[in-house]
């Protein structure tokens, strides 16, 4: 039976190649979007475990505004809150890059950064307190033509110090820090033009993360009008952000998916005269309808399996080996400081089987219909055409 199916495919080589190729391209497109969205969600989730449990922001007229340090003191007595940290960070437009960088002030007492493999730095060292230094992403340093030891005056409305590049981030954290400039909190205030008693937001560390919701309610009671972002809810943000973008890209690829449906329709809408004659000969030589259907199903299974396998392999290679050229900007957004770090696949065997079955099952199922119809006709009549 298998030999017959392979022989039949060899006899109609052009059709088999066209079907396999079309199926492979459609599977590759859909699978690549799913692989990429999963990988992005996975990367965001990887850092989520290490960020503060609750972040408090002030909203004025629906827009984020700075908080006062006194607001942070208001939150310090909340039960189960181990640490209250007013943070200073913000964006700075660099005309030379035509893009924003994220300037983050590092408070005194923050855990030191070390050099890779176990640290976040690839070159140089962490900031020395009060030395007007900065640590920047490799992508940003390269874009600005900076090397460790070089100085940079960031554009600012208020007088700000010349910052010396003390270190650059390792590629392992590039996805989170490609556009980040870390500096002393006082330097960040000067660069961002923030008053000494202002904070961008307040980060709370909760001793029991399960109580974050209760802490959030207490924060809202003590500081009405603030916006509280819980770490746990960020998982939903990532699911939404990347799921939504994946949905948009998939919607944009509907023409390609339609091509797949047309291919499937080609299988369902009927057999060519050659195929009908071939089935008639098989019936005339003693093959039962069941045998004919099994042979045709095997034929479709061979084409479907090869097309799906090729499509999945193409998608995987496209996203994780080639870096998803063409697809990555559509799904992850645009930036002048684009992190070049490779993505880590999050796909597992069950997901792959799911994708494969969702393609193979309808493809094989549809191929049975015309074969059933042809197998039911009188062999003599079919051979006469």
């Amino acid at each position, binding site marked *: 039976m298998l030999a017959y199916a*392979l022989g039949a495919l060899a006899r109609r080589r052009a059709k088999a190649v066209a079907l396999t190729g079309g199926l492979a391209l459609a599977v590759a497109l859909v699978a690549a979007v799913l692989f990429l*969205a999963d990988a992005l969600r996975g990367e*965001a989730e*990887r*850092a989520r475990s*290490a*960020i*503060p449990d609750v*972040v408090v922001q002030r909203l004025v007229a629906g827009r984020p505004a700075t908080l006062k340090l006194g607001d942070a003191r208001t939150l310090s007595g909340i039960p189960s809150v181990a640490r209250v940290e007013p*943070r200073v960070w913000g*964006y700075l437009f660099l005309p030379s890059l035509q893009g*924003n*960088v*994220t300037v983050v002030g590092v408070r005194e007492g*923050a*855990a030191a*950064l070390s050099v890779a493999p*176990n640290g*976040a730095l690839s070159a140089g060292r962490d900031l020395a307190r009060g030395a007007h230094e900065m640590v920047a992403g490799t992508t940003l340093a390269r874009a600005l033509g900076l090397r460790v030891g070089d100085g940079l005056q960031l554009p600012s409305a208020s007088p700000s110090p010349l910052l010396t590049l003390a270190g650059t981030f390792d590629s*392992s*954290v590039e*996805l*989170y*820090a490609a*556009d*980040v400039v870390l500096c002393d909190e006082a330097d960040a205030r000067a660069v961002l033009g923030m008053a000494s008693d202002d904070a961008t937001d307040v980060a709370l560390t909760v001793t029991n993360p399960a109580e974050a919701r209760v802490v959030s309610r207490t924060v809202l009671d003590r500081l009405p009008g603030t916006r509280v*972002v819980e770490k746990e*809810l960020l998982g*939903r*943000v990532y*699911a939404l*952000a990347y*799921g*939504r*973008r994946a949905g*948009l890209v998939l*919607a944009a690829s509907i023409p390609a998916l339609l091509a797949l449906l047309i291919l499937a329709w080609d299988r369902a809408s009927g057999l060519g005269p050659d195929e009908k004659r071939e089935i008639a000969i098989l019936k005339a030589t003693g093959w039962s309808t069941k045998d004919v259907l099994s042979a045709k199903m095997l034929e479709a*299974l061979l084409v479907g*399996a090869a097309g*799906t*396998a090729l499509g*999945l392999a193409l998608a*995987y290679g496209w996203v*994780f080996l080639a870096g998803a050229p063409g697809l990555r900007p559509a799904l*992850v*957004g*645009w*930036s*002048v*400081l*684009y*992190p070049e770090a490779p993505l*880590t*696949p*999050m*796909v597992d*065997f069950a997901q*792959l*089987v799911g994708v494969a079955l969702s393609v*193979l099952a309808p493809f094989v199922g549809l191929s049975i219909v015309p074969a059933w119809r042809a197998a039911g006709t009188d062999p003599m009549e079919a051979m006469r055409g």
Partner: protein
Amino acid sequence: MLFSLPVVLVAITAHARHARARRSAEQPAIVQLAPRLPSSDLALSGGARWLRMPSLEEPGAAFADGPALPDPDPAGGAMAPPREVWAAETRRTK
């Protein structure tokens, strides 16, 4: 041809598992840096300040940088978020 699919599935699974293990070895570096960052959001849209930290900023004004700007990240994709995320949230808010 028939065996190409299982071979590809197993090969992709093995390669992905290996890549994840390699990435896990870099977790200490991520854990070291993440507490200093405003959020765990990826630095993928640094050119657009409303998208750099989507989890933290401008919740009600996705395209506030100019009137009639094209929305770079419109709502309503064809793919829904994972069901379990909503389910977990429903349980939490009950």
